[in-house]
């Protein structure tokens, strides 16, 4: 019995520091955001400048109503959903292609290429955006210059459509290699005997990809898809950095940018909290919806 107790004490002692900080940094802010979203600041008197005393009152769903009534917030929401729709196939397709190519390549080359693909993961999103920002400016960019010589006149930040794709390019560049690594890990876990059996049955490389590799790395594809959905809906640093370079990006280009503007430029934390909660709900709805679809298909 005494051993049991010492073990229980040890388990508690090992868990407690993490759990305490987790509650403080993860759980408490979520509760606080939800709480803030139901409040608003009211000024008594006629609210002329700072003369009226501000007080915080219960607002019910006012902030949510206000957030959803702002066309620019809805536009931002629609934009990131559209972005996810484009980015998920682009990202997962690129990552899968990279992983399959690496799996097929001769061993000598694999570490070199793997590092090249994974390298951008070590470049912070802000730096990547600054970097691509230069590569998008016509008189600086060698890419625009070379394409111009071939007769392709690009202005990557010139229109809203171009800006959208330019942002998609930055995000793909940053994270395709990272997602590739997840897929490669799962590819390496495939049992060799499966390939041998397939070869005896006369399968070629394409058959192996189609009937062995892709089905067996499905869990990793599902996982990378979920994280790509979550990541793209949270889009912030890239448009934030490029805001000065493209007129297509306004202060509520994405929901996160809108919430940031509300909280720090307009000083309306309550509205910002409501926007953050709406985005979080939409994000979980989408990722759980995706998981549900995947699960249903697998059970059929």
């Amino acid at each position, binding site marked *: 019995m005494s051993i049991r107790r*010492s073990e229980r004490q040890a388990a508690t002692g090992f868990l407690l520091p993490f759990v305490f900080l987790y509650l403080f940094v993860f759980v408490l802010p979520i509760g*606080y955001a939800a709480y803030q979203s139901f409040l608003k600041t009211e000024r008594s008197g006629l609210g002329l400048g700072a003369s009226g005393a501000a007080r915080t009152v219960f607002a019910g769903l006012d902030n949510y109503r206000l957030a959803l009534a702002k066309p620019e917030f809805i536009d931002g929401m629609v934009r990131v959903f559209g972005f996810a729709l484009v980015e998920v196939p682009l990202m997962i397709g690129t990552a899968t292609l990279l992983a399959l190519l690496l799996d097929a390549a001769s061993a000598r080359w694999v570490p070199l290429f793997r590092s090249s*693909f994974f*390298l951008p993961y070590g470049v912070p*999103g802000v730096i990547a955006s600054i*970097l691509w920002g230069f590569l998008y400016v016509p008189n600086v960019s060698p890419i625009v210059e070379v394409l111009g010589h071939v007769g392709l006149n690009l202005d990557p930040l010139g229109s809203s459509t171009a800006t959208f794709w330019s942002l998609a390019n930055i995000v793909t560049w940053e994270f395709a*290699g990272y997602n590739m690594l997840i897929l490669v890990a799962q590819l390496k876990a495939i049992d060799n005997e499966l390939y041998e059996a397939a070869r005896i049955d006369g399968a070629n490389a394409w058959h192996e990809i189609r009937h062995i590799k892709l089905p067996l790395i499905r869990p990793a594809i599902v996982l990378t898809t979920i994280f790509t959905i979550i*990541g793209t809906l949270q889009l912030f640093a890239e448009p934030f950095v490029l805001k000065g370079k493209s007129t297509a990006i306004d202060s509520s280009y994405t929901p996160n940018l809108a919430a940031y503007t509300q909280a720090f430029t307009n000083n309306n934390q309550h509205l910002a909290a409501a926007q953050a909660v709406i985005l979080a709900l939409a994000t979980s709805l989408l990722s759980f919806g995706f998981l549900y679809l995947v699960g249903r298909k697998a059970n059929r």
Partner: protein
Amino acid sequence: MNTLPIVDDPVAEPQTVQGRPRSTFRKRTRRSASRPALGWQIITIALLAMLASYFLLPVYWLAVATTKSPGDLTDSFGLWFKNPEPLTAVRNVLTYNDGIYLRWTFNSILYAGLGAAVATLLAAMAGYALAKYEFRGRNLVFNLILAGVLIPSTMLTVPLFLLFSKVGLADTYLAVLIPSVVSPFGVYLTRIYAESAIPNELIEAARIDGASEVRIFFTLSLRIMTPALVTVFLFQFVGVWNNFFLPLIMLTDENLHPVTLGIYNWTADYRHPEIAHLAIAGSFLSVVPLMIAIVVMQRFWRGGLTQGSVKG
């Protein structure tokens, strides 16, 4: 876009635990090498090379641009050198504003290094407790922590800032450090690693020998968990280093900025183009150490959440 530190962990390969990673790796790759015909190999390599140039080109451009004057940046071809003066650019970056760049770099190392080290230790303790001790509610605790992996950290940052300002923590080193020491992914990874890599008999034997639980953890278990710890540390380090939203919101004092935020502020200084130009060399200098780390530490970037899904 925010990164979730999920990838690839060493659990995926039990041979690492047995200490013969290399031989197994060779055997495996030989299998794929023997497969396709030479023609396919050439096409594969060509495709890989094309894709690699896409990922490397921007970094190469950055290296070239670092050596150029503002005039040459617009007037000469971007992918080749013109009047290269790499030392001038580096000197300008390092000496500007009494060497604030070095201070930012130090801050980044502090946030990422200390944050990741503490995060790894806390995660290892929690993951070990969840793997090796039976207690009521164990799975509930684990699932609640795992849910944290799916929570976008940007959603937490603004409310966290409001909380921190109430208690006077905003605009301090701790404002960035405290959120950086919590890694739900680390708990997940160390738990599944400890479960499969640390034999229960070993712990029992140590107990019979009279070792305390704390001593068993620090002298025995931590050592066995090392490969997983390295992975957790690396992902947390990169995660904190790359995080922009958190310091942007928490910090106003320039002296506390990490290098990412500092460089961003340089580029945003539209009135002074010469400062915006500093951002190019500044970016390059900040990216080099991390790129080296990625190549050198390559074999530790593996395994992860997928491993759990393989095991079901």
